[in-house]
């Protein structure tokens, strides 16, 4: 299980929990579980999300491993100009 933190309105999509526990060994498993267990998260997952693991932001690496004790944040998918 990993502890996941979601900001603001995404927090309301997970029943207003500051942190949630999710069984996931990589980013894809994490996002799939979010969409599956919290249906209100599905639009966010569909729109695209980035995941911060211990301060390093991963945008596309779906199979990036998540260490057990990692700090996990889910944030909007980054873009730029």
């Amino acid at each position, binding site marked *: 299980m990993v502890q996941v*933190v979601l*900001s*603001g*309105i995404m927090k*309301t*999509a997970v029943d207003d929990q500051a942190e949630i526990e999710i069984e996931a060994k990589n980013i894809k498993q994490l996002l799939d579980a979010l969409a599956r267990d919290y249906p*209100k998260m599905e*639009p966010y997952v569909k*729109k695209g999300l*980035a995941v*911060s*693991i*211990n*301060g*390093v*932001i*991963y*945008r*596309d*690496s779906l*199979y*990036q*491993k998540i*260490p057990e004790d990692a*700090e996990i*944040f889910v*944030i*909007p998918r*980054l*873009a*730029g*100009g």
Partner: protein
Amino acid sequence: MASSTGEAPESKGTHQYQPRDFKVVGTTPLRPDGVDKVTGRARFGADMNLPGQLVGKVLRSPHPHAKLVSIDTSEAEALPGVKAVVTRDDFAENEAHHDILCNIMARDKVLYEGHAVAAVAATSRAIALKALKKIKVVYDILPHVTDVDEAMKADAPILHDDMFTHGVDPMPTTASNIAGRCEFGHGDVDAGFEQADIIIERNFKTAATHQGYIEPHACVATVTSDDYGELWGCTQGHFVLRNVSASLVGMDVSKLRVTASEIGGGFGGKTTVFLEPVCLMLAKKSGKPVKMAMTRDEVFKASGPTASSSMDVKIGCTKDGRITAGFAEVRYQGGAFRGAPADFGAMCAFACYALENVKAIGWEVVTNRPKGAAYRAPGAPMSVYAVESVVDELAKAIDMDPIDFRLKNAARNGDKSSYGPKFESLGLVETLEAAKNHPNYQIPLGPNQGRGVASGFWFNFGGETCSTLNVNQDGTVAISVGTPDIGGSRASMCQMAAEELGIPYDQVRAIVTDTSSLGFNDTTEGSRVTFSSGMAVIFAAREIIGKLCERAAMMWDIPVEAVKWEEGKAIPAGANAGDFEPLTLAEIADAAGGTGGPIAGHHEYNADGAGVSFGTHLVDTEVDPETGFVKILRYTVIQDAGKAIHPSYVEGQFQGGAVQGIGWALNEEYIYGDDGKLQNAGFLDYRLPVASDLPMIDTVIVEVPNPGHPYGVRGVGETGIVPPLAAIANSVSDAANLRMTELPMSPPRILKAIHQAEAAE
């Protein structure tokens, strides 16, 4: 050596940095594209011509909002010289790219003045323009809205009947122009404000601006009778352009080859498609090559400017300068479709500060304006302008030096960012200290002169990337990258390859390949190319070194483990390896035909680990109290580059960001009339800063290595535009003793503020 295959390791984006003494990196060699560009030989988007090509032109809506009742193209099609006409009927519905489809060719409604309604390909420009006039369009005109605050009102004209605000729980059941809401932060801002000795709350507005690239959008397309297409054009991302265009036109991706021309500026505005799918469809229908180029009027009205904004900011601090709480609510309109970067605005607003209590809310809004596109650090300059203006006011209110105030609250390693994750490695404090120690911060100011400071942040990212290096028989090396060079990246790629291989810079040449010659690469955006393509080049070069050692081992008949690469040569790894004369790269390359054939290296990956970027700007201005004109006296950009591969290019990015920020702060704005039409679609009325408006932009490159890159590189392309709006506003405020809360601070607006201040005294 990095591997290009195998399972991704844990935290692969971190801790790759290795300190080293550089020989080529950090120098400033001539750019490989320089001579072509200064002699006019470089070929930009409109410079490609094919035999028998037609001219394509677009019919655009004169109305900001209307139902498209009917489009009759029969007279246009009958005109001699017209070879193809396309409308919405030629493009099938496309779920994956629905908004892009609706933007490149209107479907049920036109949503802004300039929205494409039809396009014609003809044997001459004159015939094409004549044909456009013969297309009969029946519009049912609808009420329009172009202002973000107006668009959010319950009684505003609704652009999309199926737009229900995301991010509001429960989701509204009635449609609105509010596409989404987002929120970031932590702590308890109400409790934080209770701890404050002073609280300042302000409202701000910024105008929409255009990236202002000098080269208009242009492309040439051809499609064969068996449905193979080729497209040449100016773009920041030809792989994305290929994928989206192929999808919209209904082609297999493998059947479309796209070549990126040289680019005359992009700054985010060329990260999407406008003309290209239309050009391909015209080429497909006509069976002939078609060339299209936007006029400047079309660039303003129908490409992708940045968002305009309306913002509320409230910050509280103690008497000794500790921020106790920060709150921001930002409302961005991004034109007629989803995509206004309100989320990035909210995330960046307070990113410079380590705050216990912070909350930032973003609202993404649609209006009857052209669909916005990215513009350097999209969303950040506006929200940072608002926050940094209030920070400046707070510092003044407690009589504290503005840099000391920022240092007291600055984000440092290990601090929780205002948008969530902890910062791992950042150089904000270093930029603030460099600013405080800079000679420009000590120069005495004269009458009507003021000094402003502001800091800013951008995330940076990596993205999908691959690069190939080929060793030529004479020992030179060719680099193929898939990221268009918009800021000198070919030179920095050559430097990194030369550094790894131990050969001179001028023995390496980099090209941007077409989409059929290399795997997918994300767009040149997000300050990612020197970081991600550069890292791919480094790893590909290391793969080559391994192969060079193998070839040397073969030639010496010793195990490969007994060979090492040093300063561009294979040498025995130790005394026991044997006594052999070093083999240069050129010698090994020359023998390659007999030792296994060509030598090449390749690397493909998702480049994660891009380091965050911070900068601090210092500006001195003089405000003419009689005219409201603002003169920039001095401007200094201090920014963390991680490691500057080519310092002149890094400085160029800093300076370019500052200059675009100066334009945004002082003069540039999309001006709409009550009729919903753009009133200043040209460079005479849309006032870009020119050389005579500017002093030399001084630069300081701070180098706090990014742990996620072997050399410590951070992206530098975007952060430079984040602080200028605030820094200039703070400087003008200091000079004129008034707080400007609306951009641009054009002379009439400043004069009005001066007169209002005088009347209030």
